[in-house]
């Protein structure tokens, strides 16, 4: 029999979760896009080259423990697990359960995210768990839940966008971050809001280029124009919403000429944007990280939802509001309890009914469950301090590169008594760990992911993992039992975990109880909520068509006002810096920097700037520049871009070491979502090193 096998699965990277067929033939794995509706047979370069991850040369193959000489040395699993459990036990005995912390990731499967949350609350007994999704989706989640009653990135299938005639993209750059999505946007006229002329902006009919950190003023101004120029759907506002009046009182003070002065967006362009949306038959408003990663990210998203509500978009066929989720399981990852304030089913850990339900599923008393813990940056910032955790377990994340004020985060990680990292490559965070646990990767495991449209998908296994590599689920069970937990609480088969997740999510906002592996494997298209019922529930591709998920069925306008970013340019730091992604790399780059074909495209950190900005700083295209903020400096190669604003430089955040963009970013947090201000800080630039 020949060594050949094929599975139908999904790409390991972003929230699109493009459908792929993986084939193994004579030891070689190849990928083909499928006709899955999200990607229609398309795939970006990251997706095409994903098989290279499967035999990356520095794959972690053995557990590692840092020896007396300071080096990480291979050990057997029992030694590694005993070491971890022993030290966790010791620290917990000394300082209590909150001295133990957990940091999860938005790329983990639903099953892993769920079991990780349970492990933290029961096996460790700690409230100190959060995840890197806090850095992605938390602002949109908070604003969406407040306005619409439930947060599902796109409350309609991606394919609906293919019928749109006008789409506003506020702070989203899908042409580079999720290219196959653009296949659905080719019919619509695009209005792109971005301080940079991105590849997405180049395809726009209208590009609004606000100063970094002023998107909220722009959103308020657009609402102002919608009212004054008569584009509001007053009947919809009256029947389906609350709070318009208070929202208008704020937007009223943002007349277009004032907005122009604050944002730099011409009045005519503001008017044209509203006219295009207002006159469209099938308009949509979508937000991305550009609107969300601010110390006022929640209010900024709320500002765009206000606009969408005023125009009568959400909850109606052929129109709507949505946010473009980033990470592979950025949707599912925010629903199953790895967030500091959350229990499975998108329940709040502070809600007594939610606690009672989940405790009953877990077979414990509600009082056993800890309360809400610190948010991601606050958790990282507290590590190794007098009141913070002394130990941290990291699953599916690389905060040494991806967290804001990365220099500080690196110091905090170094101050821990115990850092444990479960990963499949030696990420920058793993290299700092006391114990590294080698785990399976996408094509070696089963599970489910929930994509940006709330559709639950099956990830399928093509390969047997290397011999001494274990799944995250196995790691959690082994650690839990060593800490005195009964083994049955931590199933290791993904299907068994999913069965428990169904019960735990039952009755919650993100209700998966009607979804099963059998239904998914039979090819059913299931978007949550999908409650268990006598007749199989068809799932909910489109939310809010009859009512919004508030008790009275109405959506809520938010009374939001503009405020400046936490940091504005001054004499010492005269420029704005904004951060983002490039096509050929993904997040902290831990995976994509290991794919030669991708790394050849974007091998090193760079900083984009206007030619005048470069000239004033004595920099030429291709020279090395030091970019400094009030926190630290990063080093990057100058890239001259004519279309940049003269007051702004751009840094991609995928690169490690001295080239980390996050060395300069500002950890100022949104008061509600605790989202850091990745998208704007004040910097200065200067030549670095000897002139070439």
């Amino acid at each position, binding site marked *: 029999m020949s060594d050949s096998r094929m599975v139908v699965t999904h790409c390991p990277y972003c929230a699109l979760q493009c459908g792929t067929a993986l084939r193994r033939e004579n030891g070689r794995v190849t990928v083909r896009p499928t006709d899955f509706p999200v990607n229609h047979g398309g795939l970006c370069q990251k997706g095409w080259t994903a098989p290279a991850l499967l035999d990356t040369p520095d794959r972690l193959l053995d557990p590692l423990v840092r020896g007396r000489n300071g080096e990480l040395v291979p050990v057997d699993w029992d030694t590694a697990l005993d070491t971890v459990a022993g030290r966790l036990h010791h620290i917990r005995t000394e300082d209590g359960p909150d001295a133990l912390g957990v940091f999860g990731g938005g790329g983990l499967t639903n099953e892993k995210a769920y079991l990780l949350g349970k492990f933290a609350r029961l096996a460790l007994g700690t409230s100190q768990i959060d995840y890197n999704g806090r850095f992605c989706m938390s602002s949109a989640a908070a604003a969406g839940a407040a306005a619409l009653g439930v947060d599902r990135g796109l409350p309609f299938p991606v394919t609906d966008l293919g019928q749109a005639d006008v789409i506003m993209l506020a702070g989203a750059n899908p042409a580079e971050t999720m*290219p196959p999505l653009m296949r659905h946007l080719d019919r619509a006229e695009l209005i792109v809001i971005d301080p940079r002329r991105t590849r997405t902006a180049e395809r726009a009919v209208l590009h609004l280029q606000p*100063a970094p950190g002023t998107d909220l003023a722009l959103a308020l101004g657009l609402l102002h124009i919608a009212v004054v120029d008569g584009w509001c759907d007053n009947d919809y506002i009256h029947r389906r919403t609350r709070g318009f009046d208070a929202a208008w009182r704020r937007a009223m*003070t943002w007349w277009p000429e004032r907005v122009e002065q604050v944002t730099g967006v011409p009045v005519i362009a503001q008017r044209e944007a509203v006219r295009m949306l207002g006159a469209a038959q099938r308009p949509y408003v979508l937000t991305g990280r550009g609107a969300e990663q601010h110390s006022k990210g929640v209010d900024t998203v709320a500002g765009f939802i206000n606009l969408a509500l005023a125009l009568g978009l959400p909850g109606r066929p052929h129109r709507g509001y949505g946010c473009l989720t980033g990470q592979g399981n950025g949707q599912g990852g925010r629903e199953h309890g790895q967030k500091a304030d959350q229990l499975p089913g998108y329940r709040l850990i502070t809600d007594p009914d939610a606690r009672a339900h989940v405790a009953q599923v877990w077979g414990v008393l509600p009082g056993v469950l800890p309360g809400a813990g610190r948010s991601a940056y606050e958790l990282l910032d507290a590590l190794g301090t007098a009141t913070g955790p002394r130990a941290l377990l990291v699953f599916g994340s690389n905060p040494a590169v991806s967290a804001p004020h990365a220099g500080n985060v690196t110091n905090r990680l170094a101050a821990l008594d115990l850092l444990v990292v479960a990963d499949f490559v030696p990420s920058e965070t793993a290299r700092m760990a006391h114990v590294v646990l080698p785990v399976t990767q996408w094509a070696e495991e089963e599970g489910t992911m929930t994509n940006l449209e709330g559709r639950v998908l099956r990830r399928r296994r093509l390969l047997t993992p290397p011999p001494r590599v274990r799944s995250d689920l196995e790691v959690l069970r082994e650690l839990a039992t060593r800490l005195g937990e009964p083994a049955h609480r931590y199933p290791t088969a993904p299907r068994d975990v999913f069965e428990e997740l169904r019960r735990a999510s039952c009755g919650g906002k993100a209700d998966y109880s009607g979804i099963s592996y059998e239904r998914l494997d039979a090819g059913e298209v299931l978007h949550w909520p999908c409650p268990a019922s006598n007749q199989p529930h068809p799932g909910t591709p489109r939310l809010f068509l009859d009512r919004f998920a508030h008790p009275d069925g109405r959506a809520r306008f938010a009374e939001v006002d503009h405020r400046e970013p936490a940091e504005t340019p001054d004499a010492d730091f005269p420029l704005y810096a904004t951060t983002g992604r490039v*096509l050929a790399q993904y997040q902290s780059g831990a995976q994509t920097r290991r794919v030669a074909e991708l790394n050849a495209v974007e091998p090193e950190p760079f900083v984009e700037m206007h030619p005048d900005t470069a000239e004033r700083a004595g920099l030429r295209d291709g020279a090395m520049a030091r970019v400094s903020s009030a926190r630290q400096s990063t080093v990057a190669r100058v890239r001259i871009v004519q279309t940049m604003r003269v007051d702004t430089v751009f840094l991609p955040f995928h690169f490690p070491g001295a080239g980390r963009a996050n060395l300069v970013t500002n950890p100022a947090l949104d008061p509600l979502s605790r989202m850091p201000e990745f998208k704007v800080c004040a910097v200065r630039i200067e030549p670095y090193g000897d002139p070439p």
Partner: protein
Amino acid sequence: MNYGTLIVGNGPAAHRLAGQLRHHGHQGAITVLGAEPRPAYNRALLTSVLACTLSADDLVLPRLPENVQVRLGITATRIDRVRRAVYTDDGTVYRYDQLVLATGARPNAPAITGLTSSDGGFSEGVRAIRTVSDCEDIPDGRTIVLGGGVLGVETALALRHRGQDVVLVHPGPYAMDDLLDESSGRLLLVHLENVGVKVFPGARAAEYAPGKLALDDGHVLDADTLLLCTGIRPNIELARAAGLAVRTGVLIDDHLRTSDPHIYAIGDCSEHRGAKPGHIAPAWEQAEQLARLLTGHNARYVGTRLVVRLRTSSIDVASFGSPGENTDRLATESVTLSDPARGRYARLILRDQRIVHAVLVGLPRAIASISQLVSRSLPVPSSRLALLLGTSADHWSNAELPDDAVICVCNNVTKKALTCAWRDGARELTNLVRTTRATTGCGSCQRAVERIYRSLSSTTETSGAT
């Protein structure tokens, strides 16, 4: 020290101050005394009420936090600086730890025969544009707007917007002559006439009688309504009677303080370094800075760069900084763009790469960019022309693509890679796509790849024939 902060006046500056005091953590009591019976509203949008695009109710400012006391319909009559108390027309006395005067300004009525009636009020058919009630129920028929400053021009355009018969009378050679130079002023004049505003420049009103206005150049105009847009006078009587230092307005220092350290003044009633009142941006900036100061933060008000942007959708007019001989003398560079046939004009006066004065008409994108450069005192881009035209300096030409041009961005496929794949035998479009992965990302390069495919096919056939 437990009387807290008392704010006299309830206009936009007072409203902003009260809200921001709480925002910045002010602990003590905050009391606002408003003379008008209605809640604070946004005076900057009054012309939208004239244009009937907003109603009076639409202009009401956001509700203040619960613990701010707002007393409406109460006029302060006297300040006792020794007792730190304010007396009011309804007999109540308000004590304060710090007092903020935000008493605003009132219309400046020119000396015109017949303008006022025997009771001291305006004659029939005359009103000023200052409060929201001034802007409601303007009678049909002809309206004469007296005064062609910013407010006068906005008022005239707003009334035209709703179809009113409008005449603008202005003593200067063209409207807004204190802010615009002659070329830009002429463009504005042309625009006003084009939209149907009859303009009488260089003329003053001489005499008014209900229904008629006589000008000093001999014209007599029908006037169902006469609207005064002839400037404002700060309300300083309260301050003067209390012995505070006043000039045109109540004098304040960089800490917004009057000559009494317990009394501050902001907005249209105040005078900071001789700046003219009547603009909302400085008023709000003063409110913000004072809120910071009174809550123990470090703050200073050093003035606001004047940005005047006409609030109308029919023409883009902006003026930055103040014109004049002094400005010109300090200038190191000036840039002028004049395209009168298309209604476009720009003049920039620069010093050390920064704009000290600029006037723009009909260039909406440049206005937006320059507005940012001026408010943040940033140097202008080296390509002045690109700035004025609202473009970025260079553009890709679509001529012959170089070999290293990336055709499929999603998969980083260059023109060269496509050519190589062709040479290596991918002679069908489907093969070319499969080998290079071009077009399989976002799909937007479909046509470009087809074009290259066609060009490769034709060149190869030609070369094959030789």
